[in-house]
């Protein structure tokens, strides 16, 4: 590995890339269009929210109904009031009906609130589904904070704003930002590397490169650096547009960096593999699409996986992108470093396997 060669290859690749208007559009403009579109369409509806079966033991008092409405307004959860037959165990019922979260408003909620007496709503969460529970807890904390503030200060507080993640109210846009960063991490290498590998091979460019001291690993590293750079750019764009247009509260933090590096590492390797497997540049594009599209929609890019039907949510777990997006959610939203570490571990192992397989199948001259 010679840095001078890697930098030279990176330089040439970047120049060629930047001189291609279509590639630039897909890298810089298209994600902005996506976030704007999805942001406007879904920000104010509950379309993507998590269903939360809720038992209201306060006999549907005004205060309790308003509290639930406020939760609904976060856009993250969708409260569905259920009435259970007497004697039913709510926790068991939730499990039997395929729910991982639930909520109970205690009797006397309105009275306690009016009297400024502490009152606890009970959130039922399934530790197996920390994402949904994270969403619910986040929404609850946020709304509860708002209520407390109003009750204590005696002034109405419109909306909830908070800077600490744990008590922030997450809006759809807050999930969309990491989702679309994941989208960029996936698509920018997958939509160019596979075809590139195949057409370089067809045009004899790899044979020419094989006559220089540049090694395949150096060539690959240069590509990974370039796509890491592009992911950082799109992360900055997403966070900025999300904050400016939709008042999203997610911010970039150091914890995101591993995903911005190992994500491209994984997908550049996968792109090499797809490009090496396909006989022509055209079929390389098809192979890349077959791999990319299901992953693009089923990994929580546009909607959190926790809002998927259970079967689909299970399928999501086979896609590497799921772990990248989940990990970025953990880092950017929930501050759950342990789970993010697990995610990055999975990404790293998958990436390493694909990298080795990629280098192995990637040939510069005929056998």
């Amino acid at each position, binding site marked *: 590995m010679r840095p001078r060669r890697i930098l030279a290859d990176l*330089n040439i*690749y970047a*120049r060629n890339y930047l001189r291609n208007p279509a590639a630039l559009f897909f890298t810089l403009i298209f994600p902005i269009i996506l976030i704007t579109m999805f942001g406007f369409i879904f920000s104010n509806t509950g379309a993507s929210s998590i269903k939360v079966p809720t038992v209201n033991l306060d006999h549907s008092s005004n205060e309790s109904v308003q509290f639930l409405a406020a939760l609904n307004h976060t856009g993250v959860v969708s409260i569905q009031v259920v009435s259970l037959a007497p004697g039913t165990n709510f926790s068991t019922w939730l499990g039997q009906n395929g729910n991982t979260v639930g909520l109970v408003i205690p009797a006397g909620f309105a009275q306690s609130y009016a009297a400024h007496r502490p009152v606890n709503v009970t959130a039922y969460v399934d530790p197996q589904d920390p994402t949904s529970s994270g969403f619910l807890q986040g929404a609850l904390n946020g709304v509860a904070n708002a209520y407390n503030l109003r009750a204590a200060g005696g002034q109405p507080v419109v909306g909830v704003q908070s800077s600490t993640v744990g008590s922030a109210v997450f809006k759809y846009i807050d999930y969309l930002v990491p989702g679309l960063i994941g989208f960029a991490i996936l698509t920018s290498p997958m939509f160019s590397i596979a075809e590139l590998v195949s057409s370089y091979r067809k045009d004899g460019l790899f*044979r020419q490169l*094989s006559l220089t001291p540049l090694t395949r690993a150096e060539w690959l590293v240069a590509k990974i650096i370039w796509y890491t750079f592009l992911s950082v750019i799109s992360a900055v764009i997403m966070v900025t547009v999300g904050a400016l247009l939709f008042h999203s509260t997610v911010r970039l933090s150091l914890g995101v960096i591993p995903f911005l590096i190992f994500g491209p590492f994984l997908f550049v390797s996968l792109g090499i593999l797809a490009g090496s497997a396909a006989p022509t540049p055209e079929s390389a594009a098809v192979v890349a699409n077959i791999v990319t599209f299901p992953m693009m929609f089923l990994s929580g890019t546009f909607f959190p996986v926790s809002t998927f039907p259970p079967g689909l949510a299970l399928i999501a777990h086979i896609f590497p992108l799921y772990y990248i997006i989940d990990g970025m959610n953990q880092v950017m939203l929930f501050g759950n470093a342990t789970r993010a570490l697990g995610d990055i571990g999975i990404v790293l192992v998958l990436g390493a396997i694909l990298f080795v397989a990629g280098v192995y199948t990637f040939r510069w001259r005929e056998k």
Partner: protein
Amino acid sequence: MPDTIEVTKLTKTYGPVTAVNGIDFTVRQGDVFAFLGPNGAGKTTTTEILEGLRPRTSGEVRVLGLDPWSQGRELHRQVGVIPQEFRFIEKITPTEAIHYYGALFDTHPDAPKLLEQVALSDKANARFDTLSGGQKQKLGLALALVSEPKVCFLDEPTTGLDPQARRAIWQVIRTLKSEGRTVFLTTHYLEEAELLADQVAIINHGSIIARGTPEQIIEAHGGAERLSVEAPPSMAEYLKRSLPYPVQAADGRVNIEMREKGDALRILTAIEASGIPWKGFSTKTDTLEDVFVRLVGRMDEGEIKGTALA
């Protein structure tokens, strides 16, 4: 002088096709070696085996003492290659390409000077996909020189170039030779080989059918010097009767083979005596091209076998 390239019983088959059929040759250090042959003769196959781009089926190959296939990385630092169809990254300019190769080979090339050498200065900053076929070829040659190679493999470097550009490339090849570098050249322009090459090999159907300096090959396989006039076939008939030399009529001309220079006088006297109208006499010796066409033609008609000739 040690041999830079040594090829022994080299054979290459592609499935049922035998592209190269047990050829032997050596190239001395500092020589320009021209590898000639019709389309599909096996030139590119041989060249790419020497470059380490293709594995051989059997035989021995050494370039600078190295096995090109298994010791490619070591070899590639010392050789420059221009492939038969040179392609490059589309939106990159010749100047950028030269600096790129410079970084890869860890040299510091003088891009303007290299581009001037290959007559491409006017396109120094044009993107590769806007270059004409000949201009692309020139860039290929410039890149082959970036590494200051000991051996240059040039597979048809002048094909598709205009006469001016071809002369520029010839000059580059002469310069390479004057710097003591070895040049392995394939070409379809026989006059190019005659002008530039120290050694020539002619390959056909995977076998070498002639080898040596251009002069040796012409000497060995060329015909006698001929006197030629523009005249009707009846002239040929007349001369056949009146002269002891072989006479042929072709393309409106009559050719008479001479044994020595002095014969010209006797032949011209006979032509004048015929009373048949004629004009424009000239004398002609075989060029490498004449020999090439004859040898390849005779081999294709099954008259001679490859490697039977040397």
